[in-house]
């Protein structure tokens, strides 16, 4: 079946959002969704059309134990480190990297190559792997080279990125603790060179998010984090 055919995509998406698409067909549709922008668009359109129907459903206050259960499952034992899956995304980088074996191997290889260069001027190479949780928004991997003095960074996409008009990619330096800081907008095609005073200071990872064309309006990432790479010094 050709899922790029518009009327078919629209019919399937309507059934999916309405709920009549069920069983194996629903599961199959959900598997196809991440890889088919036409399906995603059709689903988003039907959600936009049908979700107002939900507005008439009378709210029901859930019992207090539900929230306690959520807190218990996510933040069990306050004070102790939360379970891995509840960690903020930049602290989960190790997990992601092991999840994508190829990317990890590539990152290690690049790091080995980089560290064989005579130490004084060796740039630091960081591979920013695609974030599988945001693959629906954009599947994007980058390689960042940072000069050893931490004052210059060159970021290159590793795959072809088709970015929606009116949106931009923003690069973030992510500290081990605290909020990410913006390093500015980067190009979707070709290399972007950034000159900053302290690129590496307190930086545990670099991340790229999709933002409105002028960049994040809030100073923190507002769109999906599409790519992340941990710094290994």
């Amino acid at each position: 079946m050709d899922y790029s055919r518009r009327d078919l995509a629209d019919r399937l998406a309507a059934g999916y959002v309405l709920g009549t698409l069920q069983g194996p067909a629903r599961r199959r549709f959900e598997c196809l969704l991440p890889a088919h922008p036409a399906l995603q668009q059709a689903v988003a359109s039907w959600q936009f059309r049908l979700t107002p129907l939900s507005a008439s459903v009378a709210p029901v206050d859930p019992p207090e134990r539900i929230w306690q259960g959520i807190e218990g499952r996510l933040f069990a034992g306050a004070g102790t480190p939360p379970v891995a899956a509840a960690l903020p995304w930049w602290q989960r980088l190790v997990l992601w990297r092991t999840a994508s074996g190829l990317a990890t191997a590539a990152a290690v290889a690049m790091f080995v190559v980089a560290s064989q260069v005579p130490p004084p001027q060796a740039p630091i190479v960081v591979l920013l792997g695609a974030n599988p949780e945001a693959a629906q928004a954009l599947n994007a991997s980058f390689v960042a080279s940072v000069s050893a003095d931490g004052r210059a960074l060159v970021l290159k996409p590793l795959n072809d990125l088709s970015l929606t008009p009116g949106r931009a990619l923003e690069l973030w330096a992510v500290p081990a603790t605290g909020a990410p800081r913006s390093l500015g907008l980067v190009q979707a095609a070709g290399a972007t060179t950034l000159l900053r005073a302290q690129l590496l200071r307190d930086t545990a990872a670099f991340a790229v998010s999709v933002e409105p064309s002028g960049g994040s309006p809030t100073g923190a990432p507002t769109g999906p984090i599409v790519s992340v790479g941990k710094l290994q010094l």
Partner: protein
Amino acid sequence: MATPRSEWSDRSEALADALARIALGDRAALATLYRMASPHLFGVILRIQPDRALAEDLLQDIFINIWRAAQGFDALRSQPMTWLTSIARNRAIDSRRRSKTDVTTVSRHTAGTADDDEVDLLAALPSGDAGPLELLQQAAQARAITHCMGELSAEQQQCLALAYYQGLSHAEVAEHLVQPLGTVKSWVRRALLALKDCLGRDAAGPALEV
């Protein structure tokens, strides 16, 4: 298709802000989001999964999922409540498939006098004026869909309501209405086409974004 952020309500902004902070691992933001959204989502879930214990488990799973998936929320693609409701409905529909609950609730809302036997599904829909939707943009969308649902035949309305509110499959809708499966499928298909056409004609919403 999305509502431009400049037209969002304060509530949508607050929800989007909470989601952005959740994506950064902010626990307090999850509590805020839960307080704001859980009664609505619980109501939606209970319609699809009437088993109270299962529905409670679902709500818990959904918020754990939201904690993990918040970074995938894209404010340019959808409003926060649309995103949250879609997650909740998908989970609830999946749980129905597994538990195969019997249909106990019926989407019959009798309007008017007691002997008025007419099925009035529109009674379940928000009214055009204020109603449950204090928000201008949402109210406009709700008005549009109320109007467009009104253009459908009674059978078409009933099919859509059973499928959307209770998560019934074509076969279950057919069983419920005691109609042949093929008839129900064609009612649903035509209803969706008519709805799409009517909403496009009336609202002429923002252009599709890819």
